[in-house]
């Protein structure tokens, strides 16, 4: 169930003088695109950059030969038919390089943001929002392109990918104070609010806006009901112990209920209580879960309906602990070397005793683990918490102490990866990921670094069926998003089934992955 990543070494280019000419055109109309930024990046970084002329042509002299990445950017467009990072090209000494780059037009969403009185709001951030998913976080909403409202409340969100998007506008007076140098010299109460197209306060009731390539879609005016932030205050019991900084250090957090939305105004907040246990958080009206935790204990979450009045004298009692008494066991007579193994539960790594046992306090009833640096050929075969098998890395526990067993097997499969191009070529294989055909999608953080260049070995693979994603330099950033690879490009990746202890040799060819 692990993601496997291998990076090849890249060699330096050779000094040269090579004429280059890049013609930039609109993919839909074939019209030239002036003022596009053109960048040639070689092994040593950015070699050459400049802008296309009125004919859409950038002509210059490159200073090095060999593999380069050619990246063309222009507001309102993105490169068509390129890799994620651009196109890989070869510059050969004594030979002029000429190419035409097609740019796909993007869209613009414009409109106006008003307050509850119909007055324009300056400084609101308006985003096009899409749904995303992370293995550790679940489903959430994230804004990718944004515009700011001017003194008339007008905004333009440019570079919007054609398709359907939610539109969210938020105003937070602190943003004005933080980012605008024309703000007042005095400190004012925090105010803010949020609205989603077509005029609702929650994304649950929001509708999507559709945009076509090259379109400017002006949507209806959106009204934000701007409210004053209120204070949520109280104390934790017992108060922090020891000299500052106290040990363990408690934290109080306020998280907005519902799906996570990557917007500032409604995210919530956190604070470190004072020595007397008192805390205070400024927050905009909404529904929140308030809780406190230190390294040993947590409070029960307090659900708050925050309206227009301060909420005071709240009490959070650190009286609940979630403990794991765990051990690492072997599936067979062999004993794993645990000296380099790292097991953690989204905090400090646990400490194993000589028999592989450990004790860990968790921050709540829902937890995740990460197990890294297993010895060669070993894999994690099974995990049980309180007698229940865990599928994936997330699990639930009850208050008190639960037994945890991590079963390791020394009979992981092994795959020898052969590279079909020299590692000195930017077009050569940069990474290989084996992503499980079924079951939980592994987190991108569990990737492995290369053992050597020119051909390498992936060891300790759990038995199962995998998709092989072979990524070149253009596409390797997609290794950070295995869910996207599996969702969109599963069919491009060949299947491989591995049994326990099996050894297999593969010679993958880099997949072509269009940009995301």
């Amino acid at each position, binding site marked *: 169930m692990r993601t496997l990543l291998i990076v090849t070494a890249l060699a330096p280019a050779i000094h040269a003088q090579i004429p280059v000419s890049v013609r930039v055109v609109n993919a839909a109309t074939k019209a030239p695109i002036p003022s596009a930024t053109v960048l040639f990046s070689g092994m040593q970084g950015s070699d050459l950059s400049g802008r296309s002329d009125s004919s859409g042509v950038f002509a210059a002299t490159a200073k090095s030969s060999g593999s380069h990445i050619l990246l063309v950017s222009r507001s309102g467009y993105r490169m068509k038919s390129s890799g994620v990072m651009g196109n890989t090209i070869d510059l050969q000494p004594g030979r002029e390089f000429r190419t035409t780059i097609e740019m796909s037009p993007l869209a613009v969403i414009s409109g106006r943001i008003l307050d509850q009185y119909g007055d324009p709001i300056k400084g609101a951030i308006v985003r096009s929002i899409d749904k995303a998913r992370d293995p550790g976080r679940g489903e959430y909403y994230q804004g990718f392109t944004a515009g700011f409202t001017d*003194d008339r409340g007008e905004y333009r969100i440019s570079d919007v990918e054609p398709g359907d998007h939610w539109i969210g506008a938020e105003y937070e007076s602190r943003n004005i104070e933080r980012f605008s140098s024309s703000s007042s010299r005095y400190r004012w109460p925090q*105010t803010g609010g949020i609205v989603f197209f077509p005029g609702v306060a929650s994304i649950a009731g929001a509708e999507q806006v559709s945009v076509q390539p090259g379109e400017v879609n002006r949507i209806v005016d959106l009204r934000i009901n701007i409210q004053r932030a209120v204070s949520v205050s109280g104390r934790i019991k017992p108060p922090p112990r020891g000299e500052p900084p106290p040990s363990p250090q408690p934290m109080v957090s306020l998280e907005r209920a519902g799906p996570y939305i990557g917007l500032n105004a409604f995210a919530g907040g956190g604070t470190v209580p004072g020595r007397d246990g008192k805390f205070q958080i400024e927050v905009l009206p909404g529904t929140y879960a308030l809780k406190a935790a230190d390294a040993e204990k947590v409070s029960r979450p307090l659900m708050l309906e925050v309206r227009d009045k301060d909420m005071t004298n709240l009490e959070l009692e650190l009286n609940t602990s979630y403990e794991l008494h765990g051990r690492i066991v072997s599936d067979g007579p062999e004993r794993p070397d645990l000296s380099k193994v790292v097991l953690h539960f989204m905090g400090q790594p646990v400490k194993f005793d000589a028999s592989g046992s450990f004790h860990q306090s968790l921050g709540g009833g829902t937890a995740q683990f990460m197990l890294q640096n297993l010895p060669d050929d070993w894999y994690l075969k099974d995990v049980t918490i309180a007698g229940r098998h865990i599928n994936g890395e997330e699990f639930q526990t009850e208050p008190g102490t639960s037994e945890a067993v991590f079963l390791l097997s020394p009979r992981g499969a092994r795959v020898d990866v052969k590279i079909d191009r020299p590692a000195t070529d930017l077009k050569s294989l940069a990474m290989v990921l084996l992503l499980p055909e079924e079951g939980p999608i592994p987190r991108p953080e569990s990737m492995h670094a290369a053992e050597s260049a020119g051909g390498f070995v992936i060891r300790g693979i759990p038995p199962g069926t995998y998709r092989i994603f072979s990524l070149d330099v253009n596409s390797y950033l997609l290794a950070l998003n295995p869910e996207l690879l599996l969702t969109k490009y599963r069919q491009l990746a060949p299947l491989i089934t591995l049994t326990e202890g099996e050894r297999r040799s593969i010679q993958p060819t880099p997949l072509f992955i269009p940009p995301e």
Partner: protein
Amino acid sequence: MSALAPVLVLLCCGPAWAQLVDSKSGIFGRVTDAQTHDPLRRAFVKVSKTQQEWNEITDEQGRFRFPQLTKAEYALIAHRDGFSDRAYKVELSDFDDRKELPIELFRQGLITGKVSDNLGQPLVNCKIEALSARTRGGPVQVLASVATNDLGEYRLSGLDSGAYQIRATYRNGGPAEFGPSPPLTMATTTHQGEFSIKSGVVITGIDFVLNPVQPARVRGTLHTDNGQIVSAAQLWISGTSGEGGHNAFAREGKFEISDVGPGTYVISAETRDPDAASFGSASVQVRGDDMNGIDIVMRPSPIIWGHVRVDGDGSNLKLNQIYFRRTDQQTALGIEAGHLDKDGNFNIALPPGEYTVSPATIDDYSVERVSFDNKPVTNWRIRVESSAEPKDFVLVLKPKP
């Protein structure tokens, strides 16, 4: 009727008058646009007295209420986006009548325009800044800023009355989050002349044409005037209007400063060796191509010998540092501190230039006299000349009665 006297000169244009609806307690009022007399909704009103303050936000009619406040003198400040802050003083007599306080705010100025490149294409996300009109040798302050939209258009709002210069800066970096981060092309220019902004003024058509080019690298050497290589130094490059300021380091007598757009710059170099601090500078004109062979000759930094004296009882003086803040933006940090010994003396090496001086804390003392190089200091400003001769800075304090 009782007067509300303006308490902050830069915010207030004239006195206003106000009365109260309740003769016993409470402050009530209404915030309006001084020109149109329309109510200003969602305006902030702050009332303060000694260490306490109260805040309210105006309602649909522009009204605010502080019913809990008892009869006393208060400071009142009103704030609304798009209007200049304005301060009043609420006096005891204001509690005697029954009319609401009329708070009038003046609309701020606005400058609009468009930025395009030499091909007439809009430059997106170009930073437009309103700079304070610069006094000779003084710093440039950015008082408001905004970015152009996808049409290259900008609306620079939030400008209080005053004189401004307008600067446009374009930096086009790698479009991918993990892509190449240095600017690929860049350009900056300051619009000719100053703009005089008065309340509610809208100046349109302030357009810029920029020619973004690949940023250049500036390389050179550092040595003393007898040819000795300067092993390590800090460098700071800054345009004539403070634009493009960033730092670099010299090692083994060589330096390279990257990401320099076209323009005229001063490169300042400093070594911080407490026993042999040195400085040097060079002017460069960057036109888009890399520049090599910039020679900077390092000379000993002038030493300031400081003396703090107290006329009378100095036992409560907690002063331990004197700050020297460079006013011409030709250094990275821009501030140096002289650390006082138990006798109130210090010495500090300062590169030549103009500085404002400020003592860290002199709570219970007033300033009797400040002198630099045997001349009286006015407005806490000193000019350090380049000669290596030591210079005396003397601060004489007196206990407050």
